[in-house]
């Protein structure tokens, strides 16, 4: 059990690194994870079929933009592992997968919210000194830290068994979980503030509000926002150009 737990932890670590340092190549999708776990635990066929079942179950849970869904990789990894280990059905894998995926999401949110922000501060300091090697180190440490956390979570979860996991999940007060979700909704405001800082001033705040109102009222996808943005920018620049052409015309008359 312990040896299997450690092997699964290492598998999770490796899959996370391959996925996220390898251009989001989807090796952490349940269909691949099931296959790998089947390979590692010596039951390839079960691994592949349960993986495919979970793939379909997690289909809606894809991360687009800044939204992180319950962690499909750890959920399916442990779900498949428990099914192979205990000889349970593919459906029970899903029941096991969801609480674990949710638990891991809480840890991930903590990491993405806090730990990465600390690394970003450090990267700022290196940038200030022009130390690009420092930034390279930070990049790797940030990702490997996350992979390590996930690897340990997987190993501990498997060793502890799924009952202990759902007990732990239930032991976290609901308001803390809700509170962390609230925080996740607020955090992007910091990044947007930093981004707007170089552009925003009193004379163009209405442009920001215009983009905001457009999405608030119409829920327009970002590509649509960009198209309207380009049109707006063209109109404004065109108008200013006409203004300067008139002035230039006046200058021409003096020749």
């Amino acid at each position, binding site marked *: 059990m312990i040896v299997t737990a450690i092997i699964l932890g290492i598998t999770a670590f490796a899959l996370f690194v391959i996925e996220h340092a*390898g251009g989001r*190549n989807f090796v952490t999708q349940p269909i691949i994870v099931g296959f790998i776990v089947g390979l590692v635990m010596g039951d390839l066929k079960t691994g592949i079929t349960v993986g495919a079942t979970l793939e379909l179950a997690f289909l809606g849970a894809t991360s687009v933009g800044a939204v992180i869904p319950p962690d499909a990789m750890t959920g399916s990894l442990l779900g498949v592992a428990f099914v192979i280990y205990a000889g349970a059905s593919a459906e029970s894998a899903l029941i096991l997968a969801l609480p674990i995926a949710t638990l891991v999401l809480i840890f991930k949110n903590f990491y993405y919210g806090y730990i990465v922000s600390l690394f970003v501060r450090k990267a700022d300091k290196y940038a200030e000194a022009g130390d690009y090697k420092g930034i390279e180190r930070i990049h790797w440490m940030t990702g490997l830290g996350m992979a390590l956390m996930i690897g340990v979570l997987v190993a501990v979860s498997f060793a502890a068994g799924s009952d202990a996991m759902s007990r732990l999940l239930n032991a976290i007060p609901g308001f803390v979980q809700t509170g962390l979700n609230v925080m996740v909704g607020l955090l992007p405001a910091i990044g947007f503030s930093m981004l707007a800082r170089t552009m925003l001033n009193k004379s163009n705040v209405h442009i920001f509000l215009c983009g905001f109102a457009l999405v608030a009222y119409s829920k327009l996808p970002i590509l649509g926002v960009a198209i309207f943005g380009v049109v707006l920018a063209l109109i404004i620049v065109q108008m200013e150009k006409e203004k300067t052409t008139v002035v230039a015309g006046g200058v021409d008359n003096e020749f």
Partner: protein
Amino acid sequence: MNSNITKKDLNKTMWRSCGCSFSWGYERQGNIAYAYAMIPILKKIYTQKDKMAESLKRHLEFYNVTNQCMTFNLGISAAMEEEASQNSEFDNSAINKTKVAVMGPISGIGDAFFWGTFKIIATAIGTTFALKGSILGPILFFLLYNIPAFAVRIGLMKAGYGFGAKFLAQVGSNGIMGQLLKAATILGLFVVGGMCASLVNLNIIYEISDGANSQTISDLLNQIMPCLSSLLVFALTYWGVIVKKVQPVMMIVIMTMVGIIGAFLGILG
């Protein structure tokens, strides 16, 4: 423009772009990865420490994009950094303004293609085989998604750099740069405004009732204007971080306290 940047440098940056989501975080998202991917280029064109520092700081600003499309932005940034290093009159703020203006549209297209089209096709075919227990399932899934994904990543690196260089050559000679900067600022602000409405969320679930019916404060705010709470959150955060210069780490702590205390009191959810 005499170019120091070789194909090899661009290739290095292309491979480094694969780490797009590796050092991701909520606050500034793909920023470390962006700086990391730019380093082979920056090393080549900036020999002075202070110039390097200035550029690294620039690329540690907020950044987020569809993973496979990052190379398009990187290519444009590479061409612009090169121009900045050779032309002292070049307005360096244009580099980030262009980055912000471009990342929205390419993410829109990229997400639709990769998460919408490619992934669905790969999943449909992969699971059909895998449900029968065939090893072809995971293998086909992997290949069907990744072959187009890497083709796009490699192609966009070249396209971005070529686009950036050509574009700069055209606008460099006359006064178009000023207008373009103006346009990039407008587009950037517009898109950031839109992203604020879609990505910043605050749900105030505290209910007020007038006896007969009750509604939450968020419902009430939404009746005035949808996403009004997101706007207020942004305004407060901007005021705190930019005007009052509250450290971002402090701001994160404040936000967590607000979240947990708010949830505990049943006001936020």
